[in-house]
């Protein structure tokens, strides 16, 4: 799918009714596809639990991913273990698809003693082991970082590709434009994955750009842009797979725009009724990416209502058990405040740490 084809509409494989464009079906085994489906459902259910836990005051804040699971799970399944992820703060489904156990995600959310970020940040997650850089809260910061990482991998002759996730709002930032320009100039093995969920908090897409698509911006930086139906998991998978393989072959960056919709609030602190009509949300609910993929699987005889009910039940139990365990773990010690500021602690921090322990 090139930028010229974009004029015709976003790249799609699965239609709303679950029928498929056979010609473009990616090569995926049944078990792979069922794993993708499971990841979407797990992400959706965990998301809903986190929203609830926040309302009960048990976790601090959450940026929901409801409605965007196809874009995230589809793209993340196109990555190899050697690839690196530079996410934004909404990418929990990516972590799940990357194989991060939900226990780890919950340790982070509850900031307990096993929080991999040591209670320092509310970015959803980050882990060297899973090759995920913790999402920076300031919008767009991860984009140049991903380019630098990709350039370094190229310099070392490694095959790793960097993928970076960001929203439509982020494309207004200099960081985005400067990073794309760098990537074009240095042919960095990087994939820019924009989830255009049509809102940046309350600001609609039309407040971020006057172009019809984000994808077409790639042209100005000298590489390919792809416009994909972000609620179609197979289209997101295929487009990302192509871009990753291209980058790995040394043929440079790609900008993918997954056109999707944020069904929930921006975060638990947001009230979308202040800026959008419920009717619009309902219209997009009909395009629910999980329902669409399920229809596809059922149509092909790979999945049934019974399977589905069982899956939901299983996932519910897993999540409840993990929440209970994460909540039972010890809180972080107060002096964790002073951990991780430098590689080794300078004298003034040691002094401040002593003062804190004297006072509590």
């Amino acid at each position, binding site marked *: 799918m090139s930028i010229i084809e974009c004029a015709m509409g976003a790249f799609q494989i699965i239609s709303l009714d679950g029928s498929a464009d056979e010609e473009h079906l990616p090569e995926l085994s049944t078990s792979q596809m069922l794993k993708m489906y499971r990841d979407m459902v797990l992400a959706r259910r965990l998301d809903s639990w986190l929203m609830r836990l926040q309302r009960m005051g048990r976790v601090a*804040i959450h940026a929901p991913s409801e409605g965007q699971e196809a874009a995230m799970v589809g793209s993340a399944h196109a990555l190899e273990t050697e690839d690196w992820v530079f996410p934004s703060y909404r990418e929990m489904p990516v972590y799940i698809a990357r194989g991060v156990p939900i226990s780890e995600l919950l340790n982070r959310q509850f900031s307990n003693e096993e929080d991999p970020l040591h209670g320092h940040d509310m970015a959803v997650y980050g882990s060297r082991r899973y090759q995920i850089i913790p999402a920076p809260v300031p919008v767009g910061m991860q984009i140049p970082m991903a380019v630098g990482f990709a350039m370094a991998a190229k310099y070392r002759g490694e095959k790793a590709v960097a993928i970076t996730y960001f929203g439509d709002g982020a494309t207004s930032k200099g960081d985005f434009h400067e990073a794309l320009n760098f990537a074009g100039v240095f042919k960095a093995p990087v994939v820019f994955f924009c989830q255009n969920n049509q809102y940046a908090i309350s600001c609609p897409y039309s407040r971020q750009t006057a172009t019809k698509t984000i994808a077409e911006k790639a042209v100005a930086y000298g590489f390919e842009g792809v416009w994909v139906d972000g609620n179609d998991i197979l289209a997101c998978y295929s487009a990302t797979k192509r871009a990753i393989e291209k980058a790995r072959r040394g043929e440079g960056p790609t900008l993918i725009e997954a056109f999707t919709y944020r069904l929930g609030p921006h975060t638990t602190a947001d009230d979308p009724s202040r800026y959008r009509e419920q009717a619009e949300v309902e219209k997009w609910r009909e395009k629910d990416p999980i329902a669409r993929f399920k229809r596809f699987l059922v149509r092909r005889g790979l999945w049934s209502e019974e399977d589905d009910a069982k899956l939901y039940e299983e996932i519910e139990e897993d999540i409840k058990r993990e929440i209970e365990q994460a909540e039972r773990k010890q809180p972080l010690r*107060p002096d964790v405040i002073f951990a991780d500021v430098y590689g080794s602690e300078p004298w003034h921090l040691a002094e401040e740490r002593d003062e804190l322990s004297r006072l509590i």
Partner: protein
Amino acid sequence: MAVIPLAQAINQALREEMRRDDRVIVMGEDVGRRGGVFLCTEGLYEEFGPDRVIDTPLAESAIVGVALGMAIYGLRPVAEIQFADFIYGGFDQIVSNIAKIRYRSGGQFSAPLVIRAPYGGGVKGGLHHSQSPEAYFIHTAGLKVVIPSTPYDAKGLLISAIRDEDPVIFFEPKRIYRSVKGEVPEGDYTVPIGVSRLVREGSDVSLITYGAMVYECEAAAEKAEKEGISVEVLDLRSLLPFDGEAIIKTVRKTGRPIIVHEAPKICGFGAEIAAFIAEREILSLQSPIIRVAGYDTPFPLVHEHLYLPNERRILDAIRKAISF
């Protein structure tokens, strides 16, 4: 007189100035339809329309850079940065362009604009929703920096800032946006930039502070009173220009200055105040100048209540000053 929260006083100042002067424009992320994420601009979009209440693209550098262009044209833009933590994206424009346009044009051009930003901790916002970056801007010649702590001052100072002939960075202590309420007169009044407010009189120790820390200082002063220590609390309100006269006065009176702020200690604004006192009033001192500040770490997510100066830490400093 109506008793309203600090956030609403800001809203009132903006509304009244926009009614009074059609050069006043409000711009920023989510300031329009959404009314700002803290609702400081609530209702302005409905009253003044999209040309004067501008929901901008997500781009801090352009928000402040564009505000500068408007100011040079002759408008009075009030740009909102959604959280002070995101002001760094516009830092280059602010320190290299906005702060210097008067100087580098030999006084031909100026930047009468306001940059408003909620700042500070206490809302469990983690390290990118809690910072106190005032020192970077105080350090930059050409900028004025203001931090109100009461609804009355918030309105009066914001009106002064909008009418000021130079760029004003207006940091709002978000943790007390709703919790602190106070009497605010409807209609026009100003609180002059550069003048502090004596919150509480005392004779043994001076707490010199600003922002949400004013309330921690008051609480500590109450406690100290019970121990027989008389504590004065000075709310600076303006950090640049700061009220040097009032600082000297209180130091002469008590001889024991303690500076309290949320920002980290090293090179924080307290360092400037300490140096100012040391240079001018060293012979009045009866104890070392003490700073109670945020620790020199990034702002933590968990245990922020231990990171921020609180009554206990301030009281500890008061006792230290007294027993020196």
